[in-house]
């Protein structure tokens, strides 16, 4: 074969089935209970029944119940040749990685189907969100990669895939659910001791980093330290009555969001920072008219936001560059903002000025108004929408649209300096060419000539 053939399957025996209680608690908090959205997951067990209704929501049954469980096996015929010279696997505490940290998954799509083709397929993404040992990544994973290892750039094991695919309210979320390896191994080592398997427990415990062998408080502190000053901390949750979405803090008392999040001028909104700081009330001082293609609102806060690194605005828009989106889409207030990575897939210009940005980052409902950053943390724009095919009802989270900061920056600068709203009102009067772009109706200026 073109690839080196995988080893013949080796027999193994089950040592135990283990789950991480903290993972289960986080899972119940985020996906179970009173959460109204219907979450679905692709699990590692038998195929779900045909009746889709029976596989929806928190009462999914065995498939969902197995989601946080992992099996520890021992190979029965591990040869000396395999052992010699194989470097030791290292495990890194998941809590030591900040959101947005690059991750690599290494799994086998479709499980044991055709391993000479699919064994150890790689996928790249970032740590999108974390709730204790429950992690989310935007690395694309497929069914069969349940149990796959997720590694840091240094090659340390961070997590195992718990569910490769997630849907919320029938929309593919584009994130994979992970269980932190350190927490899982700690639980498994404890269980092995209770089963009297001291030697195996010692082997597992030896894989754990020193701080993970102690309490979980240390790594949590490390995360806070590492995240201090991160660009994504400028993302905020904006609540306007029963509607909520994302926004970005541009100055201590200035937040930018979308009109469809904060639609009415003079309306009070509550802004919750991504940090542990208390929420701050604000007022919508400007929202574009419904007829404007620019879906923008400006919020003036009653108090200053503290401890937030206000972003530098990007002065360039390069197609193909690495970008990330920060939004509260997947979980709202329950889990802080999610970071998803991708590239700037298109910059649409009118008269040589960018008027629309497109990215490959996964974007979900609730991310509207959230910031789009370059890899160096400069603010490129704000997210306004992802894509839906109205004929099929399918939503595509990896094609989404942003308003470039270049469109907003002159008017915002003037507002910040003088409090003058008139320049912002110009956003209600864009050219017809801009309107056509945002209606997704632009046609080429000249019809393409056939080359035949």
């Amino acid at each position, binding site marked *: 074969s073109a690839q080196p053939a995988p080893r013949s399957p080796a027999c193994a025996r089950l040592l135990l089935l283990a789950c991480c209680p903290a993972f289960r608690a986080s899972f119940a908090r985020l996906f179970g209970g009173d959460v109204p959205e219907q979450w679905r997951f692709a699990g590692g067990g038998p195929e779900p029944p045909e009746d889709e209704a029976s596989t929806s929501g928190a009462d999914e049954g065995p498939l969902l119940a197995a989601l946080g469980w992992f099996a520890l096996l021992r190979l029965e015929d*591990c040869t000396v040749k395999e052992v010699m010279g194989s470097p030791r696997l290292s495990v890194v505490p998941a809590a030591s990685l900040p959101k947005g940290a690059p991750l690599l998954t290494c799994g086998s799509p479709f499980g044991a189907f055709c391993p000479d083709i699919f064994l150890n397929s790689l996928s790249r993404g970032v740590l999108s969100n974390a709730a204790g040992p429950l992690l989310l990544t935007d690395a694309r994973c497929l069914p069969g990669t349940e149990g796959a290892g997720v590694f840091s750039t240094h090659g340390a094991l961070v997590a195992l895939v718990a569910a490769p695919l997630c849907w919320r309210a029938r929309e593919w979320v584009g994130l994979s659910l992970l269980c932190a390896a350190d927490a899982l191994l700690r639980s498994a080592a404890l269980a092995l001791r209770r*089963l009297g398997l001291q030697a195996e427990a010692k082997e597992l415990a030896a894989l754990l980093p020193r701080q993970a062998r102690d309490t979980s408080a240390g790594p949590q502190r490390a995360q806070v330290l590492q995240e201090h000053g991160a660009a994504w901390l400028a993302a905020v949750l904006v609540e306007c009555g029963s509607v909520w979405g994302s926004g970005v803090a541009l100055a201590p008392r200035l937040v930018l969001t979308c009109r469809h999040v904060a639609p009415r001028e003079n309306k009070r909104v509550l802004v919750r920072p991504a940090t542990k700081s208390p929420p701050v009330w604000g007022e919508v001082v400007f929202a574009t008219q419904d007829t404007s293609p620019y879906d923008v609102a400006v919020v003036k806060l009653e108090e200053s936001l503290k401890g937030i690194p206000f972003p530098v605005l990007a002065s360039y828009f390069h197609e193909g560059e690495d970008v990330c989106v920060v939004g509260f889409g997947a979980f709202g207030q329950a889990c802080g903002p999610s970071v998803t990575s991708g590239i700037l897939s298109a910059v649409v210009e009118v008269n040589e000025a960018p008027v629309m940005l497109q990215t490959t980052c996964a974007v979900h409902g609730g991310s509207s108004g959230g910031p789009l950053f370059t890899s160096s943390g400069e603010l490129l724009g704000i997210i306004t929408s992802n894509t839906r095919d109205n004929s099929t009802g399918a939503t595509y989270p990896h094609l989404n649209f942003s308003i470039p900061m270049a469109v907003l920056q002159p008017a915002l600068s003037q507002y910040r300096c003088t409090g003058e709203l008139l320049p912002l009102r110009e956003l209600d009067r864009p050219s017809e060419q801009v309107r056509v772009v945002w209606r997704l109706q632009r046609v080429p200026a000249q019809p393409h000539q056939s080359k035949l």
Partner: protein
Amino acid sequence: MGRRWGPAMAAGERAGCVVSARGAGAEAEGPWSCSGVLLNRRAGLVLCHGGIVAPFLRAGPGALQPGTGPSFLGPDSCRDDLRLYVQWGPGRGPRARAELRGALCTPPC
């Protein structure tokens, strides 16, 4: 992928494996399979998703309670006819590539 990802790729390929579960009884069940991680080659320890052994639980898949049930189940929780197999690759490092020299053909699938 760039040099930056070298250590992660190497670690993934060293540790990555596939685990299959099937029944050995008269009515053979499965196989169910998933990905896994070779935690420790010397000790032969492998971690994989628990869903593939759920069909072999004596108490049924419901034994994996999502709520406040037990956080682990011993090997006796599964039927005796459960058979587990682990398959892993040689990786794509220089040594593995050396094995490929002169081997050009279409992979059968």
